[in-house]
């Protein structure tokens, strides 16, 4: 038989929509990973700077660019972690209901944390 649609009849009966693309997820994981590598090295070197010099001498790290870097670091890490946890939930939870609810909760918690944290970082700038 010929089907004019890309969805098989079973997919149409389940009526859950198309699967869209998985390559965006893969690409965002790699891109956020590269950014996180750079920023992790940055923050570890900040810890080592405070360690090798006294706290007063290292108050130089209290700079708006470092605060912005902290904001970008935590937000990108949470996004990267959300992508990874999505894969874990899809791999290990088989019951469809629990799968869907866990995914929704995961994305909700992550997005709320990102929003609140960004608000806190932005409020830091008023203290300068």
């Amino acid at each position, binding site marked *: 038989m010929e089907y004019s649609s890309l969805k098989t009849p079973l997919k149409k009966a389940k009526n859950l929509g198309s699967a869209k693309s998985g390559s965006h997820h893969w690409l965002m994981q790699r891109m956020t990973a590269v950014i996180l590598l750079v920023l992790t090295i940055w923050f570890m070197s900040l810890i080592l700077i405070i*360690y090798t010099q006294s706290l007063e001498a290292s108050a130089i790290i209290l700079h708006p660019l470092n605060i912005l870097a902290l904001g970008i670091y935590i937000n990108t890490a*949470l996004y990267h972690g959300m992508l*990874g946890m999505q894969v874990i939930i899809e791999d290990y939870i088989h019951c469809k209901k629990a799968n869907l609810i866990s995914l929704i909760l995961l994305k909700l918690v992550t997005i709320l944390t*990102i929003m*609140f944290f960004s608000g806190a970082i932005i409020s*830091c700038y008023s203290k300068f």
Partner: protein
Amino acid sequence: MSIKQKIELYKKRPVSPHLTIYKPQTSSTFSIFHRFTGTALYFSFLVIAWWLVALISTNFEESILNLSSCLIMRIAFVGLFFSLNYHCLNGIRHLFWDLGYLFEIKQIDYSAYVVISVAIILTGVISTAFFTIMKEYVWNIAL
């Protein structure tokens, strides 16, 4: 059939042993540890983000900074630093695999050795630096 009946049936079906008999290898062990450290890091970063929100919104009160004076928190911090280092270094290996390099068995073994040794060394360095900073600048304030 309800879900409870399905679960009962699943428990009764015969399954041949898989994880209990398969020999753990470099590739599989490092991959599952990459996943473990990734989940641990996700929850740790959630806690860190909310802790930073608390720190900033109470206007940098110093009692919030006093984190690592008890043993459990120190163990947790060492675990966090090890997870971060291991996940980052193994992530570099993953990026090499995406570019098409380091696929031979010898290359996998050598890069795994480099990853675990650098992770342990870096964890030692960062943990001593972090705990010295905490001891010199924060514990005195709280006490």
